């Protein structure tokens, strides 16, 4: 699936949940499904700054595609990073770098994108695109 196809699928999934409670329960569930970063990479080198909770994100280039693994010490933040990994992981670097992440707004998480928010969703997106650019340049 392309990045946009995954986004559209998530928009459909989230439309199914009416109230915020169910939405957050789904995000928490997604957090449990995140491809976990190896313990050895849970260091300051792979930490995302700008989060009240800790987020670690590790990028890898395999067969011309960028794959992410991640973790967080807060469960909702872990769900948010899991969402991003779901959408962006496993695609060519160029596509990740230029992806328009319209699903965030549409699933009602736009409030989390503000740069002043403590969860650092914006920092996650920025960092994932930066990693993709860096790995893309290497390949």
């Amino acid at each position, binding site marked *: 699936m392309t990045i946009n196809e995954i986004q559209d699928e998530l928009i459909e999934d989230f439309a199914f949940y009416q109230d915020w*409670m169910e939405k957050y329960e789904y995000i928490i569930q997604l957090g449990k499904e995140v491809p976990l970063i190896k313990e050895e990479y849970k260091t300051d080198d792979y930490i995302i700054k700008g989060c009240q*909770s*800790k987020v670690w994100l590790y990028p890898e280039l395999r067969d011309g595609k960028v794959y992410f693994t991640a973790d967080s010490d807060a469960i*909702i*933040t872990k769900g948010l990073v899991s969402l991003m990994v779901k959408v962006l992981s496993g695609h060519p670097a160029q596509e990740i770098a230029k992806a328009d992440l319209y699903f965030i707004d549409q699933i009602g998480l736009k409030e989390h994108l503000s740069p002043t928010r403590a969860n650092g969703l914006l920092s996650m997106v920025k960092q994932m695109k930066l990693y993709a650019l860096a790995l893309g340049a290497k390949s």
Partner: protein
Amino acid sequence: MGTFDILNIRNDFPILDRQVNGKPLIYLDNGATTHKPKQVIDAVVRYYADMNSNVHRGVHYLSQISTDAFEITRRKVQAFINAAHDHEVIITKGTTEAINIVATCYGRPFIGKDDEIIISAMEHHSNIVPWQMLCEEKGCKLRIIPMNERGELDLDGYRSLFSERTKLVSFTYVSNALGTVNPVKEMIDIAHRYNVPVLVDGAQAIQHLAVDVRALDVDFFAFSGHKMYGPTGVGVLYGKEELLNKMPPYQGGGDMIKDVTFEKTTYNELPFKFEAGTPNIEAGICLAEAIDYINSIGLDAIKEYEDGLLAYATEQLARVEGLRFIGTAAHKSSVISFVVDGIHPYDIGVILDKLGIAVRTGHHCAQPVMDGFQIPGTVRASLAMYNTAEEIDALTSGVERAVRMLK
């Protein structure tokens, strides 16, 4: 002194009627800032509609009435904290600026290489960093009063820090992260036995406890307007006349001068020496309304009510499984900090927000305190006079709901 009628009080705060995320607002982040009663809000509007003009400058009518109003605040603050003179009340931007004035204008001239400044282990960053900056510049050192596992300062440890090199002591009255009320009078007396002046950070005390700077014999006392139901952008540095007179001005500019030529400037007298530039006039003037408001309820009545609410909240939250209080001092005021086993404070904060409940999560600008307890942060509910037992019940069930979701 009036009577404490919670319904009347709540009616004075328009924001308490609003909804957040479709739920009635339950505001428990008063340690960060308190809401404003309509008396203060109306005064802000009245200032701009009726008297807006610069202070201490114009001969014209509006300038005179705004100057008079600004000076009324100074006298109200003087009476509120029982200072001996109104010129011992310096109007600042807030507590942080007040502490920085002492660090700069007392610290630079009177604290030198290898001298020592005593602060406590429970300070807000605002009462750590200005001293660290001074230490970097002058080569002086910080000594830290230790704290026990309940979040109480160790007074024997405090006494043992004094030496002939001790030049200043600075500590908080009430801990913003833990709620501990420190034995300030006793601590000031100890410092004075060594002839060391004391600055007390009163940011979390001034809205909860009656403060008498002369009874405390405190040398400097700092607090903010916005945490005492007043406007943002105004605060106070109280200092003993004798000390303030010894200190050079803080910043150069208008209002702080008596006479300026290109050869020499003579500085103005207290308090203007420390008030360079146009102040936050509106906030300065309207702080008087906040003081009147607090006085109309009475700090003794406020304290009695808030202490009862704190005890109730502690009792209710203690029932939540896995919840652990951070800060269990014998003397506490209006702050409940806690963690829940296995759950990040941030997650609890997000769920509570969705329920319309405003708390603070994180390190509360007191990272060394969190490091001391070996936690990344806490959930903090901080109370004001307008909070109710029903709101505490909503907080407790909100935390329980969050725990069910997050476990």
